[in-house]
């Protein structure tokens, strides 16, 4: 199937800072494609270039078969964009905001009312339609922004950290909506630094310091993880962590509640045996653990050493 977004050698520099560095990417239609990366990794810059808000320093972008920047205006009619920061007019009501967006996006006059009603119902905003957008809760604001972004029935939806600031329940509802849209043929591109959001994507690209460091479906990425992951518990985990610190076979250690999660370097064979041997002097229960997207992320960004593990967000 034809790719919805095709990007070759995409770079963006601000002065001597390179925000996006030589990214190649091909985003297939009908699915949720995620950009996973820490804050400041270049996700927002990349997504802004893909909807023509920023001009690339180098590289080519093709969206829905059209080229940026030459055909930006045409592309904007078929792309919905939701900003990271709430960008609806706080001093207008929900209804007024929706009417404004409908007109700006060129929804036909006869269809405007019906379309707005349908969206307000679908996003459960109808009871508040006369409330000022600035007075809404975080979840309502997100739903309004999403409703406005899809008012013109875009074929492609670009969402910049859509649910970073909302509670898990709102996040789950929001994602249900995204999947519904995918089923009706829309392609969705989201940026995120949250692991649970990343797990939901059909396809992931992991971005670090402006570069794409890995991509594939979450399952495939986890399966390809060459490193062994183990959970250690017992009374001595702080001491164990200090003991493992700086050992060349250990890629990363993370405290999760009462247990310690240890990821070994890809080269270590029979990791369980190696750990048992290495921690023989400690009282510890050691068990293999299933890989998570967080592990994939730590692995993919390991060039940064220990800092990468901490910077993964969450």
């Amino acid at each position, binding site marked *: 199937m034809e790719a919805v977004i095709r990007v070759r050698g995409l770079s963006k520099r601000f002065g001597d800072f390179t925000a996006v560095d030589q990214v190649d990417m091909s985003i297939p239609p009908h699915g949720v494609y995620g950009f996973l990366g820490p804050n400041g990794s270049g996700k927002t810059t990349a997504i802004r270039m893909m909807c023509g808000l*920023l001009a690339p320093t180098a590289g080519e972008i093709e969206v829905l078969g059209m080229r940026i920047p030459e055909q930006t205006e045409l592309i904007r009619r078929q792309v919905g*964009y939701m900003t990271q*920061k709430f960008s*609806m007019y706080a001093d207008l009501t929900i209804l007024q905001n929706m009417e404004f967006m409908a007109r*700006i996006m060129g929804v036909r006059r006869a269809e405007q009312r019906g379309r707005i009603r349908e969206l307000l119902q679908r996003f459960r905003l109808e009871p508040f339609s006369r409330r000022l957008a600035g007075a809404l809760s975080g979840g309502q604001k997100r739903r309004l922004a999403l409703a406005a972004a899809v008012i013109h029935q875009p074929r492609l939806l670009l969402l910049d950290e859509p649910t970073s600031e909302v509670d898990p329940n709102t996040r789950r509802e929001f994602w249900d909506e995204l999947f519904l849209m995918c089923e009706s043929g829309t392609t969705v591109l989201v940026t995120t630094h949250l692991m649970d959001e990343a797990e939901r994507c059909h396809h992931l690209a992991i971005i670090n310091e402006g570069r794409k460091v890995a991509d594939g479906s979450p399952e495939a990425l986890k399966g390809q993880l060459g490193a062994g992951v183990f959970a250690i518990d017992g009374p001595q985990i702080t001491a164990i962590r200090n003991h493992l610190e700086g050992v060349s076979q250990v890629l990363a250690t993370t405290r999760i509640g009462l247990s310690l999660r240890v990821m070994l370097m890809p080269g270590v064979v029979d990791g369980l045996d190696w750990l048992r041997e290495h921690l023989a002097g400690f009282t510890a229960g050691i068990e293999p653990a299933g890989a998570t997207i967080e592990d994939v992320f730590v692995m993919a960004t390991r060039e940064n050493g220990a800092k990468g593990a901490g910077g993964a967000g969450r």
Partner: protein
Amino acid sequence: MSSLLQALIRIGAVCRKEVLHLIHDRLTFGMVVMIPLFQLVLFGYTINTDVRQVPAGLVDQPANSFSRQLALDLEATQVLHFIARCATPQELEGRIRDGELSAGLVIPPDAEERYQLGDRPTAQLVVDGSDTMVAGALRQLANFRFAPGRTLSNRDTPQAISVRLLYNPERRAALFTVPGLLGVILTMTMIMFTSIAIVRERERGNMELLIATPIRNLELMIGKIIPYIGIGLLQVSVILFLGVLLFAIPVAGKLLEIYTVCLIFILANLTLGLMISTLARNQLAAMQMFIFVFLPSMLLSGFMFPFVAMPRVARQLAEVLPLTHFLRIIRGIILRGEPLTGMGADIGYLLGFATLFLAISAFRFSKRLE
């Protein structure tokens, strides 16, 4: 004691932080120095309530040595400066009405005889009364004593000059001030409203959304301006209504002309405001730029101080400001009944100003997406 010390430390921390804000905000920091420096130098030299070198015309009907001496002596007071010669008193009055001249000296054919007999004034000074400050200074010339070839002795010299006010003979200041206020109020509100229009959207984050829609720069600019045109015209109506009601400003029969000129002036101010809006990074910066334009508009345009009495450099600077041109037009219409056709240059300037600044705004806006 230690709680006092802690209070001082906290106050010190806030002070340090405020200074850091100022240093990071280079525009504000620059304004702190620039506003006093620039404005003081500019206005200190230019604002001059002594009226001098008023542009005047001369109708010298006898054209002999007596009349030449009279004109030279009068010019030597430095209040007047003859910049034009007119053949007849009618031509002189026409050029005063068109705003080209502020006054004129009419020396009749029998001037020398009048002087010798001393029964009637030797010559007449015709003065445009629409600027009360200029008219006031020129009226002092009625005390001018003319004594050709003799040392002055006040006793026996007759009154040489009689002064006649052409417009606003009752010398009502309101006739001069109200049309001026119309311009000042429009300058203030129109530039202020639009100068924060785009900055506000950028500050609140609405701009990123707007840019991602198919709307074009020029469409956005025009859409933002149109509602304020309505507001501006509403203000014009309020001022005119009160002007007629309270100060009996004569506007009858000129309403269409007045509204046309106000509309053009509103457009010029709105586009200037838009330009500021594309330059300023935040609302405070926009307000500072607004004041930077507004203060010279108040002081140099001829609203507060007579335009004709300002030095050349200040007048040239004032010609850049839309308010200067608007005041010239609106006073011409309301006070002197000057036809619009004679004011093509000023109207053309305002139209050109609006077009230029709309274009700059639309262009600058597209460059500011980053």
